[in-house]
C-alpha cells in the first residue's frame, strides 16, 4: 500500500489549512485563558505538563502524532490493584501512587 496522501502538497494545504489554523488559535486561546486564571498553574497539573511536552513534540518533525500519543500514555505494564475511577484523565500522572 502506498502510504502517501493522494493529494498533492498544495492540495493538502488548500483542503486543511483553514480548519487547522482555527485549531491552532483555539490552543493558543486555551493557554492564554489558563494564564489569565493562574499563569503558574500549568506546572502543577500533570495534564498540562504533558500538554506542554506535546506542544514541543509538534515542532519535532514527522512522527508527531505517535510521539504525542506516547507522551500522553500510561507507560507502566502492571494492572491497577483496584479501580480508582471510571474515566481516564487524558494524560498519565507520573506522580501517582499505586
Amino acid at each position: 500500500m502506498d502510504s502517501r496522501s493522494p493529494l498533492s502538497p498544495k492540495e493538502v494545504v488548500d483542503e486543511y489549512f483553514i480548519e487547522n489554523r482555527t485549531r491552532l488559535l483555539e490552543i493558543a486561546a486555551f493557554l492564554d485563558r489558563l494564564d489569565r486564571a493562574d499563569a503558574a498553574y500549568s506546572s502543577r497539573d500533570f495534564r498540562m505538563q504533558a500538554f506542554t511536552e506535546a506542544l514541543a513534540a509538534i515542532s519535532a518533525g514527522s512522527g508527531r502524532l505517535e510521539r504525542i500519543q506516547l507522551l500522553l500514555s500510561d507507560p507502566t505494564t502492571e494492572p491497577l490493584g483496584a479501580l480508582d475511577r471510571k474515566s481516564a484523565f487524558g494524560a498519565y500522572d507520573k506522580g501517582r501512587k499505586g
Partner: protein
Amino acid sequence: MQYIDHHAHMVSRTTDDYQQMALTGCVAVTEPAFWAGWDRSGADGFDDYFRQLTEFEPARAAQYRIQHYTWMAMNPKEADDRELSRAVLARIPKFLDRPTVIGIGEIGLNRVTRNEIATYTEQVELAIAHGQMILIHTPHLEDKLKGTRISIDVLNSFPTIERERVMVDHAEEHTLPLILDQGYWAGLTLYPNTKVSAARAVDMIERFGPERICVAGACDWGPSDAIAVPRFIFEMRRRRHSEDLIRRVVFDNPVQFLSQSPKFKIRPRLAREGALA
C-alpha cells in the same frame, strides 16, 4: 453509498437517528452491550437490557430497513465488580441462540485493573466455549496503549482462538499495528474528543491500507454522531480516494468480518457490482 456501522449503541439513540442513518445509506448496525452511563443495581437489569437488545431494537431498526444485530457481554465499565460480573456472565448463554446475536462483546478493559482482566478473560473463555465471535473494547486516552497490549496478551494466551473472528475496536495510530500484526481485525471508531476523527481515520487507511480495518461511529448516550460513517465517506472523497476503496472499508470489510456469523444475512457484493459503481 451503502454502509454498515459495526458499533452503534442504538438503545441510547432516537428513531430520528435511525432515520438519518437510513437516509445516508446504512443497511445494518451491530450493537455491542455497553454501560448505561451509570452502574446497574443488579444482574436483573442486564436481563432487561439484553431483551431490549435482542427484541426491541431489531424491530425498531427494521422500521427503517436497517438490519440490527447485537453482541452480548458484561461491559468493561462495570466489569471490575466481580460478583456482578459472574452473575451477568451466567445469564448470557441463554441469549446466544437468539437470531440476531452474533457474538460476545464489547468485552475488554476500562482502567486496566486486575478484576477487569479476570472478567475479560472469563468472557473470552465463554466466547470460545460457545464458538462465538468476539468484539473487544480497548480503553481510552492514557489507558489505551497499556490496555490494548494486555488485551492482546490475554487473547494470545488462548491457543485455540480464531484470530480472524476477533475485532479489537477503538484502535488508534499507536495501537493499530499491534492489532493487525497479530492477525486480528481492527475497528476505528469515529468519535469526538476521546477516539479518532474522520480525517485521522482516513490517514490510517492511507498509512496501513484497508485490510482487516472497519470504521464505526460508536454512537451512544454521550457526545457522538449517529452518521459518523457517512462523514468518513465524505472525508475519503475529499482526499480523492476511489469509490471502490471507500466501499471496501465501509461495506465489504464489515461484511467479510461479520459474515463469519451464520446469522449475519448481508452477503458480499458481487465483483461486477464494484466494477459498475
